[in-house]
């Protein structure tokens, strides 16, 4: 992994070329939180950690906070609001516009055999369409393979709210030094079995055999998020909460 | 002018000639208005209330869908007639005290009615206070119960309400204070009191509102008197419904 996190940037500051990756052939890719002002000024629009990937020649700002803005390809946990003849209306977060989830966008769904979701049900879905002035659209099936890939209704368990940054951290495959959350590994290593789904919209769904375990895992992540615990502290936290059950 | 509270001893009568645990004249009629789905007229002493129910009917517009689509919403509108009090007074629609009563009534019936039987519909209660002489919230609740029964909307049980007071004002800490049932406007002005509504004949309290200061020790007695008063109210309301029902049944037999 050629990801590097070099410095903390503030909105509006000018970025020196030395911080930007330079690749001989690939064009420079700007990720979230950066803006290109022609001819060749690049400034951050948010405060956060400037990250760059030399191999892909990409650069972006890692930041924590703000509202969730749907982006195509994001995995999210949505709450069904109400059904309609063709869609389910679902909400992703407070303030966000309602998303639509076509009735047939489930694995193996047809007119006759589609899942019946009650208002309030949770689904793990992928954002398939996100335009500025349109309601986002979700899918629970891969349009190319027709497989669910683990998407679909989430039964039981509990939903926790986490920060957007935490949601991203949980989903990125990174070593512990670069912000990987180790608290879950710690639980796993202790033989606790649980299921987890992370939504980029700042939602975390946890299910396990007992209520207490579910709560402990959810709260451990929330606490790691809130207090910004380092790996050592995370391990301690996990061990402590495991004592309770 | 403070009341002479010494005259309130259990053995004695109140200013209007009632005993301490006596309700005022409580009368009611149901099906008073042909155009409404349900209606009632109720008098508790000189407090007079009319209630009409319309619905359950299709929810108006999409603007009102506040998540609760799997059950009926209960909307309550209270209008206080300008001539209801001693002095003529017009109350705006934004009067917070009235809105609080409306919220209370709505919330009490939202749990008592089987609203889940009528998804995405609205039950509208329209209450008119024609004359007020104490126990207003109680009268409104009782009238609502009757009108909802008249409208044939399923409910767990009657919600019956009355007020209960205590002869000692909050400042005096005397132990000889006695509870009083069903206060009129004058008594409400002078004495600490609470409004209590229970579910049917049980001790389950659906609404309990107290707005005057009272020693915590007084409360138990007041509450006990109030809860018992609600049971008496239930008997009366039940009689009204049965009377009306019998009359309908008689009429059907030809």
């Amino acid at each position, binding site marked *: 992994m050629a990801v590097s996190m070099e410095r903390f940037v503030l909105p509006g500051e000018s970025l020196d070329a030395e911080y930007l990756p330079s690749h001989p052939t690939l064009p420079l890719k700007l990720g979230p939180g950066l803006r290109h002002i022609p001819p060749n000024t690049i400034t951050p629009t948010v405060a956060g950690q400037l990250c760059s990937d030399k191999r892909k020649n990409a650069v972006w700002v890692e930041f924590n906070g703000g509202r969730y803005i749907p982006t195509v390809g994001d995995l999210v946990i949505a709450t069904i609001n109400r059904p309609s003849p063709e869609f389910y209306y679902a909400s992703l977060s407070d303030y966000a516009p309602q998303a639509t989830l076509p009735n047939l966008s489930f694995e193996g769904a047809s007119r006759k055999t589609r899942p019946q979701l009650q208002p309030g049900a949770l689904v793990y879905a992928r954002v398939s369409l996100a335009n500025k002035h349109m309601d986002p659209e979700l899918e629970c099936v891969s349009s190319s393979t027709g497989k669910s890939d683990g998407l679909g209704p989430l039964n039981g368990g509990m939903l926790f709210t986490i920060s957007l940054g935490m949601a991203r951290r949980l989903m990125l495959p990174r070593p512990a030094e670069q912000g990987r959350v180790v608290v879950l590994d710690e639980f796993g290593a202790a033989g606790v079995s649980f299921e987890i789904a992370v939504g980029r919209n700042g939602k975390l769904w946890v299910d396990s055999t007992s209520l207490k375990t579910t709560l402990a895992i959810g709260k451990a992540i929330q606490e790691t998020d809130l207090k910004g615990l380092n790996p050592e502290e995370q391990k301690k936290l996990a061990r402590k909460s495991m004592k309770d059950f | 002018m403070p009341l002479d509270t010494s005259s309130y001893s259990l053995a004695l009568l109140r200013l209007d000639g009632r005993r301490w645990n006596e309700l005022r004249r409580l009368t009611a009629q149901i099906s008073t208005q*042909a155009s409404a789905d349900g209606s009632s007229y109720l008098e508790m002493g000189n407090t007079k209330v009319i209630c009409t129910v319309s619905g359950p009917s299709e929810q108006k517009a999409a603007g009102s869908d506040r998540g609760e689509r799997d059950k009926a919403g209960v909307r309550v509108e209270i209008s206080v007639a300008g*001539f209801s009090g001693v002095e003529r007074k017009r109350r705006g629609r934004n009067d917070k005290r009235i809105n609080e009563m409306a919220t209370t009534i709505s919330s009490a019936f939202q749990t008592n009615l089987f609203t889940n039987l009528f998804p995405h519909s609205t039950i509208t209660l329209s209450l008119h206070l*024609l004359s007020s002489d104490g126990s207003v919230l109680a009268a409104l609740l009782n009238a609502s119960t009757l009108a909802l029964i008249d409208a044939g909307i399923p409910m767990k049980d009657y919600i019956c309400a009355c007020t209960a007071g205590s002869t000692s004002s909050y400042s005096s800490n005397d132990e000889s204070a006695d509870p009083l049932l069903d206060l009129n406007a004058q008594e409400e002005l002078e004495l600490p009191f609470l409004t209590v509504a229970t579910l049917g004949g049980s001790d389950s309290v659906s609404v309990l509102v107290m707005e005057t200061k009272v020693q915590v020790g007084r409360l138990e007695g007041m509450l006990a008197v109030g809860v018992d008063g609600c049971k008496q109210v239930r008997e009366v309301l039940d009689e009204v419904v049965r009377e009306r029902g019998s009359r309908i049944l008689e009429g059907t037999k030809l």
Partner: protein
Amino acid sequence: MAPSSTQQILLSPAELSYIHTSLSLSPPIRPDARTASQFRPLVAETDILPSTNGSARICFADGTEAIVGIKAEVEKSRPIYQQNVEELDLSAGAADDEDEDDEVGNGVKGLNEWVELSVEIPGFRDDDSMPVFLSAMLSEALLADGDFTKRLWINRRFHWKLYLDILLLSQPLSYPLPLLSLTTHLALLSTRLPKLKSELDEDPLFDDDWDASEFLYPRAVGKARTRPPVTLLVMAVQENIIFDPSKEELAVAEVVLAVSIGEMSPPSGGGSMEVDSGKGERDLRLLAIRTIDPPSRLTHSGVPNTLNTATGGSAAGTSEQNSSQRESVVEEGVWQPPRGGAKRKLIAAMISKVLERGGVAEEVLDGLDAVELG
């Protein structure tokens, strides 16, 4: 023109056509078979609220219900300077008759601002057009003769301030004006004011005994009676004049009038609209007329079979053709909303039907008189 209906009622073209044709027959056949001048039975009671000076409740047969409570409070009069009187009068009110100023001689004088009238209709805000129009029409009739406010005069320094609170208790199914007017009439009839014990311009002192109180409208037998005004709704379909229209009938009306009538004591000034200078009989006077926009204008017209594709006809190609064809085809049994205004002769006939000796107004007033008071 006053707004028509409080609720747009939805009737199918076939229903409208049926009712309209029935009402156009001579004599008309009303949906409930009443005669043209017959009223539906109503339930009335007065003096129902002890905390008011006067009150009444009326239920109409269609289930609409109204209650009126009247409260009087003693108020200090604003000092009036004679030269200002006319100006004040104008600013205060609607249709005040200036001629009456001659009577100021004995010092008895009323101001329109001594009466406050409010109309409350469920589902409407206070400043919506419907309640505002209704209260304007009701107070217009009440204050029209300038005689009413004189009853509120106590002495030169004090007067009664009269609050009329008119509540519609039911949903406004049909046009509520007649209901509200009749209820107000009864409430005014039952209104009593405490007997004055003080004299002249002292601070007023009243008799505590409610039994000694005096009616706002004294009911001495034999003397010339004065009664509060009533406002009736009259509608016409072709030549037929129909009273107490139901909401379905209103939906096909071609002309709708709200006619306010008052009964006078022998007048001192000149009432121009006086119809009959009776001797001991009711002396009725026309106080106000308002045309009401008939809701029938807002209905959709029916489609005749010949233009209906669903019934084997052929629809017109364009919308213009369509409307012109509809205009030209006049078929029996197809509803056409009425257009244009009313003939003067018809309006005159409607008014005289109300006011004539033995006419509807007399019967209504007789009926209302018979309601047991107090």
